[in-house]
């Protein structure tokens, strides 16, 4: 084996490496993508450790002081002496704390819905490809129908049935997103199932379930990962938009979108910070995810690989 690895031909060397390691190496060769990843990890870390970082729990009305409402950035809290670095909102919430808690909701909704939709969509896509026939036709028409209408329209429709709330926003996102995964997984599975390695596995007497899960699924993953990354960003944006419209989270537990909406009414009196800073937090998160997602798409693109 050693002899083969020392053959100085690039392609042979690449084949000898594990494909995932090659992908990782290529991913890390882009400074922008790495910056995006680092920022994203920081955001996730801050959101995860929120209760130990913030100076007040923004959802605990007992900790809020209405007298401190709408204070500009850098104001001092009279009682306990900490500084409102980014100011306070209309209810006297410290904006730093509110933004970090809002990020928690955004990430939870975005990542949670994307993961659940990925599992459901991939499963349905594989089943659709494997079973074929009327089930395949039915599922794919459903996917076509879902994807042909604007997301916001479908979201309004689903939320009009289900009512407001974080859980319902997540459910809405899942109901909209699974279709992307299903279509991709099905297409990819159909392509993969015609390859020789599947024939080989079948020839060796491997069962159909094991072929699908053990052989076809791993080869369907690269495009699904790319879709997943971009869907998380889309889900976070949509959640923020819906909360902004007053169809998302409850007023007592604002996510970033609702914080921005609440700040909107004060903007006309030049109290810009209530909308500006949550918006910037949202923006940085979305851009970071998109940078990572774009790089993943370049690295995992099968056309560039072969």
């Amino acid at each position, binding site marked *: 084996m050693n002899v083969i690895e020392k053959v100085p031909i690039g392609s042979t060397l690449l084949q000898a490496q594990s494909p995932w390691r090659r992908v990782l190496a290529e991913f890390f060769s882009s400074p922008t993508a790495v910056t995006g990843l680092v920022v994203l990890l920081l955001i996730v870390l801050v959101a995860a450790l929120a209760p130990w970082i913030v100076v007040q729990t923004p959802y605990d009305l007992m900790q809020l002081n209405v007298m401190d409402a709408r204070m500009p950035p850098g104001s001092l809290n009279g009682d306990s002496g900490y500084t409102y670095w980014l100011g306070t909102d209309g209810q006297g919430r410290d904006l730093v704390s509110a933004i970090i808690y809002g990020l928690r909701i955004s990430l939870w909704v975005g990542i949670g819905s994307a993961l659940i939709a990925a599992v459901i969509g991939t499963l349905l896509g594989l089943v659709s490809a494997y079973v074929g026939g009327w089930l395949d036709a039915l599922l794919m028409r459903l996917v076509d129908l879902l994807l042909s*209408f604007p997301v916001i329209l479908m979201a*309004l429709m689903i939320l*009009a*049935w289900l009512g407001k709330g974080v859980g319902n926003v997540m459910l809405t996102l899942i109901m909209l997103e699974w279709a992307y995964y299903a279509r991709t997984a099905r297409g990819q599975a159909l392509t993969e199932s015609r390859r020789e390695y599947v024939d080989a596995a079948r020839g060796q007497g491997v069962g159909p379930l094991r072929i699908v899960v053990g052989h076809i699924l791993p080869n369907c993953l690269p495009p699904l990962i790319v879709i997943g990354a971009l869907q998380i960003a889309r889900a976070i944006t949509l959640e923020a938009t819906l909360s902004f419209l*007053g169809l998302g989270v409850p007023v007592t537990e604002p996510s970033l979108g609702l914080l921005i909406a609440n700040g909107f009414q004060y903007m006309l009196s030049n109290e810009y910070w209530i*909308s500006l800073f949550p918006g910037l937090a949202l923006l940085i998160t979305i851009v970071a995810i998109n940078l990572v997602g774009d790089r993943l798409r370049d690295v995992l693109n099968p056309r560039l690989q072969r």
Partner: protein
Amino acid sequence: MIGWALRRLTQSLLVILLMTLVVFVGLNAIGNPMDILVGEDLNQAERLQAIAHLGLDQPLWQQYLIFLKGAVHGNLGQSFVYHEDAMRLILQRLPATFELAFSALFLAVVIGVPLGMFAGMYPEHPLSRLMMAASIVGFSLPAFWVALMMIMLFSITLGWLPASGRGETREWLGVQWSWLTLDGLQHLLLPALNLALFKISLVLRLTRAGVREVLPQEFVKFARAKGLSPMRVMCMHVMRNTMIPVVTVLAMELGSTIAYAVVTESIFAWPGAGKLILDSINMLDRPVVVAYLMVVVVIFVVLNLIVDSLYYLLDPRVRIEASR
């Protein structure tokens, strides 16, 4: 040809029928509108009378059939809140939404096409690179936040443009329009630009890709060799051949522009159908929500049908594909 048209038409009607079912059954799963519309002080008999008056006492399938029968005649029920015909409410508000959506598409073309042509002609130019980077931002920014920033910059800090309402309107063809007065145009600019941001990015990228594809082709070289001025080559020969995908995509985008106007209208207090639907969702005004969803679905399906038919007529490849 007739076979294809019939098949495509049936498909569209089926989609609309399916959506009526989804919309109607789905909306009946939400809370009882009686709790909101009728005060606590009504006694049981008055309550039942009100329920019967609104037709809510019949079984769901019967309500659906009545709804469907009405829908064919353009009657989608009375608004629980405004006590007016739901369809008429939507149609009254729709011109304002259309005005906004078409203005947005207009801006997308007027801004996106020239920028895209520039970026396609000089792909290495720093300005082109800047435009491509900006268009990524245009894709990924949440529109509502951009709207707020626009209001903050242009309305509050600079005081150039108004941030809410339609301004002065003038009647034309029996409908009030903002774009016919200067004040109305000023009111229209910010919301239209906000709604257009995503489309500008899209048109810019499409045009750029088209120009880069067309430029190296023989007929462009020939036109140049003939001694035509670069301006004329660009406008007459290159542009014509890049506009087909742009026009198709924009036609398809009209539906989503109308749907996304919900966000823009609610921020800029633009009195269109989108604002009405948000209020109606919050007040559980079922007939209005249903009427809005149905109107947008029909607009959407009809647009798709038109685009598909045009493609069928214009592109021989689609015809061959369809006849197989």
